């Protein structure tokens, strides 16, 4: 047997090398959970894991952003074992126990999307590159959500979308790394149309004012299709710039258009402004075509109802969630949120809180932060105890399927937080739709080294 310099035999070298290869190639997958951990963006290696929350702290949707920030703060507190635990106590999956995520303490950084896609992408990029976030969440605009989830797909960072309601988010613009808990415009149409038909009849002429970006377009298309299926006629559809402020020039033509319903496909301050100005113009007290004139806001939130005040009375819309829902999970969250911030949570706060918990749970179930495994843990995940009944994170389009709330502005609110009332809960099977309806491709699972 040939001897190498230093007394090593070839057999010894081969044995050592073979053992080394086995150790390097196999042992991590046996002994170390998260064996893929070396090759993905912002792999948390210390005692902490950083999440990035990107919200509209300024701009037309700033109220939602402020409430999202509160919800994220509360979610992180609960994940780290603080407070009363909120929905961790009611969530059907019991993996998250208040010990951070995979034993790492959760920290977070925040960014301002300024309700704009460019600012949102810049902020998200900064959080990925500078702050090392492993997951991004938040936002209150579909334009922002689509822009950020596109970036997240490139960088291999999971995006748990905040409030985004466009059909495109989980339709033609869906991404493997993007997940939406919030419902979509199509589901709003499905939930709202039967109520509109019942309350206002089938002989109606509708005029649409619509925010000129992806959410507005799909919202208009969905509610238009749903109301036309009832027998309504669409008189006119008019696009308005986001953040227009003064809508008087758009409202004036409604008066003599022959319409007897105004549908405001607006959100945030835009909806508050367009609704209050419509009421100022006397639309709600008006008669047209022998019927009372009606205003409809297909997507509405408590925050907008508070902003619009009495103008909201009697007006129908839809919501993802209602803080007054009687189920145990909703009450647990409302109690935690109310005790900490002195006000009930909005639907934007709810969806962001739930998304953060769902991500943490998926990591725990996957046993790793490695994004492709976390994505697989979220895909097809069925859960309950988050305030929307039995819920499915559909694998085909990353859309959560759950109940939808049809709401109406209260005539006699008991407080400023009590301006919306759930008039019908549309069950999941009714609000369901085909995953291929809005097209798109999810794209690859591949993790990226950012």
């Amino acid at each position: 047997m040939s001897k190498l310099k230093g007394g090593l035999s070839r057999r010894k070298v081969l044995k050592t090398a073979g053992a080394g290869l086995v150790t390097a190639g196999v042992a991590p997958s046996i002994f170390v959970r998260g064996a893929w951990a070396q090759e993905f963006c912002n792999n948390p290696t210390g005692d902490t894991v950083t999440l990035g929350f990107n919200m509209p702290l300024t701009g037309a949707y700033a109220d939602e952003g402020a409430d999202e920030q509160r919800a994220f703060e509360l979610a992180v507190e609960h994940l780290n074992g603080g407070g009363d635990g909120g929905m961790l106590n009611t969530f059907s999956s019991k993996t998250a126990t208040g010990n951070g995520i995979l034993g790492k303490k959760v920290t977070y950084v925040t960014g301002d999307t300024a309700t704009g896609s460019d600012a949102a992408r810049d902020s998200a990029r900064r959080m990925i590159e500078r702050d090392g976030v492993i997951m991004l969440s938040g936002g209150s605009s579909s334009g922002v959500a689509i822009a950020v989830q596109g970036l997240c797909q490139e960088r291999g960072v999971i995006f748990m979308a905040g409030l985004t309601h466009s059909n495109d988010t989980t339709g033609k613009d869906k991404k493997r790394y993007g997940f939406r808990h919030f419902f979509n415009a199509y589901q709003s149409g499905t939930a709202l149309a039967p109520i509109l038909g019942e309350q206002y009849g089938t002989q109606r002429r509708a005029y649409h004012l619509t925010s000129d970006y992806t959410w507005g377009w799909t919202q208009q298309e969905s509610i238009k299709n749903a109301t036309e299926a009832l027998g309504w006629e669409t008189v006119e559809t008019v696009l308005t710039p986001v953040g227009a402020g003064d809508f008087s020039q758009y409202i004036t033509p409604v008066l003599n258009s022959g319409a007897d319903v105004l549908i405001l496909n607006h959100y945030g301050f835009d909806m508050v402004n367009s609704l209050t100005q419509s009421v100022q113009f006397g639309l709600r007290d008006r008669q047209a075509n022998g019927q009372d004139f009606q205003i409809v806001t297909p997507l509405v939130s408590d925050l907008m109802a508070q902003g619009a005040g009495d103008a909201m009375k009697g007006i129908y819309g839809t919501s993802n969630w209602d803080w007054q829902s009687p189920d145990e999970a909703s009450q647990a969250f409302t109690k935690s949120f109310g005790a900490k911030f002195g006000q009930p949570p909005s639907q934007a706060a709810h969806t962001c809180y739930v998304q953060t918990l769902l991500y943490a749970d998926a990591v725990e179930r996957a046993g790793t932060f490695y994004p492709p495994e976390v994505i697989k843990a979220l895909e097809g995940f069925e859960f309950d105890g988050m305030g929307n009944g039995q819920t499915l994170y559909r694998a085909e389009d990353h859309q959560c399927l759950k109940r939808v709330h049809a709401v109406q502005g209260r005539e006699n609110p008991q407080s400023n937080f009590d301006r919306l009332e759930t008039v019908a809960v549309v069950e999941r099977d009714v609000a369901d739709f085909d995953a291929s309806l809005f097209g798109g491709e999810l794209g690859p699972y591949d993790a990226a080294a950012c």
Partner: protein
Amino acid sequence: MEAIFAQFLNGLDKGGAYALIALGLTLVFGTLGVVNFAHGALFMLGAFCAVTFRRLLTLEQVTVSETELTPWGSPLEIRVPYAEQWFGDFGQVLIDYSVPFSILLAIPVMLIIGVAMERGLIKHFYKRPHAEQILVTFGLAIVLQEVVRSFFGANPIPQPIPSSLVGAADVGSWLGMQANQVVYPWWRLVYLLFSVVVIGGVFAFLQFTTFGMVVRAGMADRETVGLLGINIDRRFTIMFGLAAILAGLAGVMYTPLLPPNFHLGMDFLVLSFVVVVVGGMGSLPGAVAAGFLLGIVQSFASMTEVKAIIPAIDQIIVYLIAVIVLLTRPRGLLGRRGVMEN
């Protein structure tokens, strides 16, 4: 016909705001020769006078209920504004009418701000090129808006219309049209009337008072007025204060129509300059005429029938008109010979 009339009213309403702001802007230019890019910030500061006044009126005494709980289990806080406690029904009226009452706060505050701005900063730039004046006043505008942002945050702060002025007037029936065909919100009519009265007041002040006569003389020939032993600088400082008041009042009364935020001034600044340029630099009647003209044209451009022919024309019509006016009439509609031509 009704639709056209309704858009005409809309245009007058917008034009009222443009004219009020542009009037102050052109007054400063005509008297002091300063291109004041901080004028939009004065409009914004006026709006925040209304916000501040309402906040003062709605300061609340908070007591915690011993028996009632919130839905989330905390003791219920009962809040009663001090104004209601101290003044009873009159306190409620004060809060309800906080926007028009805040004019009383806005006039002295805006006068002080205007005079301080002119004496503290702008007077040092009288003899400097217009480019430097623009830079320094634009910088001042940014400082002012950031100060407001730090105190009031970035979000718009809605201000309510007084309860008796909520709703719409049947303007069409006043003019013999069919009932309910042309309705217009009461507060917008109030704003239009307010702007007409204020503009009329400014013209009357300049036309029928000795002070106004000296100012007009100073605008025409500053040196000769100075040679007559009249301290024209002091009068021009007061005119700067008056311009600040005009912008401030326009801002106060606009708050129920558009919830103010720190950026409000910038939103109006560019349009106001276009109004001044179209009307003619330094021409007071030109600023008023151009304000109403551009408001009306912008309103008509947003009609569906117009946009069906030229999409998005409502977003560019004002600038298009400015280009046409400058090409065909470089001094503006009512511009004076020699102004900005040397």
